[in-house]
């Protein structure tokens, strides 16, 4: 137990200290995450490029505009955008030192994220029922891969967010948990931005 206290002290130390030798670990980690996001940008960029190349390659099969049902997709979009807003509110609560508000807004964000995933799965199930699968044509291969890569990112984010909420409950707002909330916030906003591109490139350009 005494050991644990020591470490808590050590962390507070590592979090605030900037003088030489003892680098500010939490700011290093935040920067590392920004660079990770660059790599994730390239990952999605490659998938978008692939989708763009294969857009016309439906092999005389069904096209997107024939299959998409925009109502669900627009609902998804608004739910995800709202969740970005609530994750921002979570950050504001954290900056006020309001642990309850922070966990609460994170919970709202996660719930909205889960709704998004539910709707997306519903869309996929619906499409598969209509006979459009990943092996229907190159167009649909690219569609499923791009959209579900975003979906998998969101799902990972959900579990991650729950893990952070539990840690906040245990440790409260410390330099370490503060960094973790900042990182998941960045991640969540990033996924929102990616979704805007998915919505535009995959759905809007197709049905307009």
């Amino acid at each position, binding site marked *: 137990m005494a*050991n*644990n206290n020591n*470490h*808590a002290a*050590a*962390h507070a*130390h*590592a979090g605030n200290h900037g003088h*030489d*030798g*003892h*680098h500010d670990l939490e*700011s*290093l*980690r935040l*920067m*590392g995450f920004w*660079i*990770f996001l*660059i*790599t*994730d940008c*390239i*990952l999605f960029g*490659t*998938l978008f490029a*692939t989708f763009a*190349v*294969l857009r016309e*390659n*439906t*092999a005389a099969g069904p096209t997107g505009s024939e299959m998409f049902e925009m109502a669900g997709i627009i609902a998804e979009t608004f739910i995800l955008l709202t969740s970005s807003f609530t994750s921002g509110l979570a950050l504001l609560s954290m900056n006020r030192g309001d642990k309850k508000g922070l966990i609460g807004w994170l919970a709202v964000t996660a719930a909205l994220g889960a709704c998004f995933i539910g709707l997306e799965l519903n869309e996929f199930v619906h499409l598969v029922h209509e006979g459009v699968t*990943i*092996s*229907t*044509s*190159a*167009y649909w*291969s*690219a569609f*499923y*891969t791009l959209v579900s890569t975003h979906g998998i990112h969101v799902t990972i984010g959900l*579990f*991650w967010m729950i*893990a*952070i909420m*539990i*840690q906040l409950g245990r*440790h409260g707002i410390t330099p*370490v948990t503060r960094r*973790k909330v900042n990182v998941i916030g960045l991640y969540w906003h990033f996924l929102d931005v990616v979704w805007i591109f998915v919505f535009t490139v995959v759905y809007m350009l197709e049905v307009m």
Partner: protein
Amino acid sequence: MWQNIKDFAADFFVTGDPLIYGADVAIVLTMAAIVFVLTYFKKWKWLWTEWLTTVDHKRIGIMYVIAALLMLFRGGVDALLMRTQLAFPNNEFLSPEHYNEIFTTHGVIMILFMAMPLMFGLFNLVVPLQIGARDVAFPFLNALSFWLFFWGAMLFNISFVIGGSPNSGWLAYPPLSGTMFNPGVGQDFYIWGIQISGIGSLMTGINFIVTILKMRAPGMKLMKMPMFTWSVLGSSLAIILAFPILTVTIALLFVDRYFGAHFFTLDGGGNPMMYINLIWMWGHPEVYIVILPAFGIYSEVVATFSRKKLFGYKSMVFAIMAISVVSFITWAHHFFTMGSGGDVNAFFAISTMIIAIPTGVKVFNWIFTMYKGKVSFETPMLWTVLGFIPCFVVGGMTGVMLSVAPADFQFHNSYFLIAHFHQTLIGGVVFGYIAGLIYWWPKVFGFKLNERLGKWSFWFWNIGFYVCFMPQYVVGLMGMTRRLSTYGWDTGWWELNFVSTIGAFLMGAGFLLQVWQILHSIKFMERDTTGDPWNGRTLEWSIPSPAPVYNFARIPHVEEMDDWWEQKKRRENGVAPKPLPPLEPIHMPKNSGIPFIKSFCWFVAGFGLVFDWLWMAIPGFIGVAVCMLAHSFNYDTDYYIPVEEIERTEAAARGAV
């Protein structure tokens, strides 16, 4: 029941070739020997606490180097098998199928499982010491990168005896690598071996960018950084921009193979040429990723052994950055023959030629560094000046020849190309990493390598290189294409191929001499007590060898470029060194078993997906997720080294002086 097991084993294990059976026996004996030695000397606990769970960049670096040298051995054996097959016309030493597998594994292993880990090993061994840091920015992630590479390499290598090796070339072009033409598991081993280790490479790139940008000793401005560190920065930037493309490309190939998608298939609207574009959008930057650190090593070596500041520091930095940027817009020169049209080919031809300019700048800088320097020719310098510079100049010139798009229609996929890229990759990358390994060896292990054996091995390698590859340029112009498993007497290619095979074996002898050099040096070389055996210039030489676990007892304050050299000069001139500040407790990361276990779970998941065994893949992925959560919930990740312990360690290290 028995029959079922026999049928399964006949499919599961690779059978039918005496070479494979020999390898099976060798693998089982080696594993048994390792287990026996560890048990007999009661070393299991030592292995776990000191190595498998370590987060110390120096130990991780050593493990990278050992793994890379083992892979160099395997890739080298592959090369010698191919050269033996090609030594005579109509040779039946290897069947065409076996030959396909061997050129595939040779390429993949040499680039991804030899050059990359050797490079990461040098990053780890040198960069934190050069910039006056106590570790990398993310030590846990660093260990994870290593173990991902390790288990990825294992997954790739077991395809040799289990299931069958991949056989569609090192970049696995579809449709050949698709299920239509390649239904076996070899290609899946390729996908998961590369995917798992590729994630590790990506994280190493992130790690070193943050380390270099954020953890330099106070006073070390970017433009005062040692050149090797600059080259690591350039290489890491290229890694983070290029490796995600590899991840996606290989993932799409997997989706094609596993879920029956149509990205790269011939039917369903797929586009195989898109794969070739994507893979080279990673593949071309990749070759610059591995060469840039070699350039950095040459810069350090030339300056040290000329006892002179590096000539044209700023132009060198500019050249590194220019190369890492331009390398992203040259990819299509790998397939001028694809038919993209004159304008596209012209663009990529010109961008390729442009790369020769910064590279040329660097070559002149190295030469001018030697001009009026007190040049001495220890082995690292031999590899640099007599090995690398002439070899790379010729390799670069043939590269410019290949970049001329219309001419490339003749050279494309001929032995001329083979000779060119081996000349840049061996003469550039391998020679550089060997020079770096010999140069920093005393820093890592506390003793130099034997110079005489080193010189012998250098000459075997160097002469062997020219004997092996110069004939290949000629035989390529005579029309011999790559990946040809045999040829007839009437082609007139025999003599040149035979000479080339002799050269390959000379290089093999050079490698054996290096192994001997290392073993001999471990036994006989004296300990270096100075910490600075080469009269070095940069901070890594200011601390004892091997470096203590915390590297620097006091973080140095840097004033100038080549700060250690300047300090030594000031001391010679009788300027008293500044009084040292008092020691402080040092904050260090704790060891962790999670990187090893998590990477092993990736291995299990990958193996399950290769054989389409979801009962194995799903627990593997669950293991990965559990490890991630376990790490996230662990808040007990660091400790402090007390001042008394630092004093003891320093006294022991300096006591020998």
